[in-house]
């Protein structure tokens, strides 16, 4: 069963780079790592997904070490609008059940002026 551990909360300032790390020690060989962003009263929004090494898109980068037991979401030059809860989701295959699809409590990121 793949479970994830993230910091409960983080603070930063506008213009800074923010790195949020997620631990997933029991990740299975075929599992992907996906990060979502959620604002209050909205559904989660896909940010980025990866399997190994580094993935970059227009909003974020995802760093995955060789052992894949953790991953780091990097948000460059954050703004106030990046204040949200960030979830790391790891697949659960072949965990024998769907519990691994359940999100953890996420990281509440607060950006200050």
């Amino acid at each position: 069963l793949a479970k994830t551990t993230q910091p409960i909360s983080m603070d930063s300032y506008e213009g800074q780079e923010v790195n949020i790390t997620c631990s997933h020690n029991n990740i299975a060989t075929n599992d992907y790592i996906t990060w979502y962003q959620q604002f209050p009263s909205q559904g989660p929004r896909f940010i980025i997904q990866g399997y190994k090494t580094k993935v970059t898109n227009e909003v974020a980068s995802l760093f995955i070490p060789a052992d894949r037991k953790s991953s780091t979401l990097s948000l460059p030059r954050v703004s106030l609008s990046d204040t949200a809860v960030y979830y790391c989701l790891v697949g659960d295959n072949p965990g024998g059940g769907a519990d691994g699809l359940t999100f953890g409590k996420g990281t509440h990121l607060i950006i200050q002026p």
Partner: protein
Amino acid sequence: DAGVTQSPTHLIKTRGQQVTLRCSPKSGHDTVSWYQQALGQGPQFIFQYYEEEERQRGNFPDRFSGHQFPNYSSELNVNALLLGDSALYLCASSLAYGTDFLAGNQPQHFGDGTRLSIL
């Protein structure tokens, strides 16, 4: 390109009643999953539908049931409502089912949910 839409946005029920929530997936998606999100918690997986059948199920009682229609839209039904069923109910669609879904190799697209309050 229409995203995932859910209805209603808010709903108030009393204990013991039954409720039906509705979801239309993102255009081009054929798999629908339902999640329950209690206040301050992450979404908890309820079940997934593909080709009008329940394919995966999380740790939820039989009071939670669903349906998928030929046009890929879906309903979530909850019977004998309890106070603890108060939550935001999220629908997500994707192109993955089965082992691909469990591996998480396709991102899910979420609606903004239905806020269900039980009095």
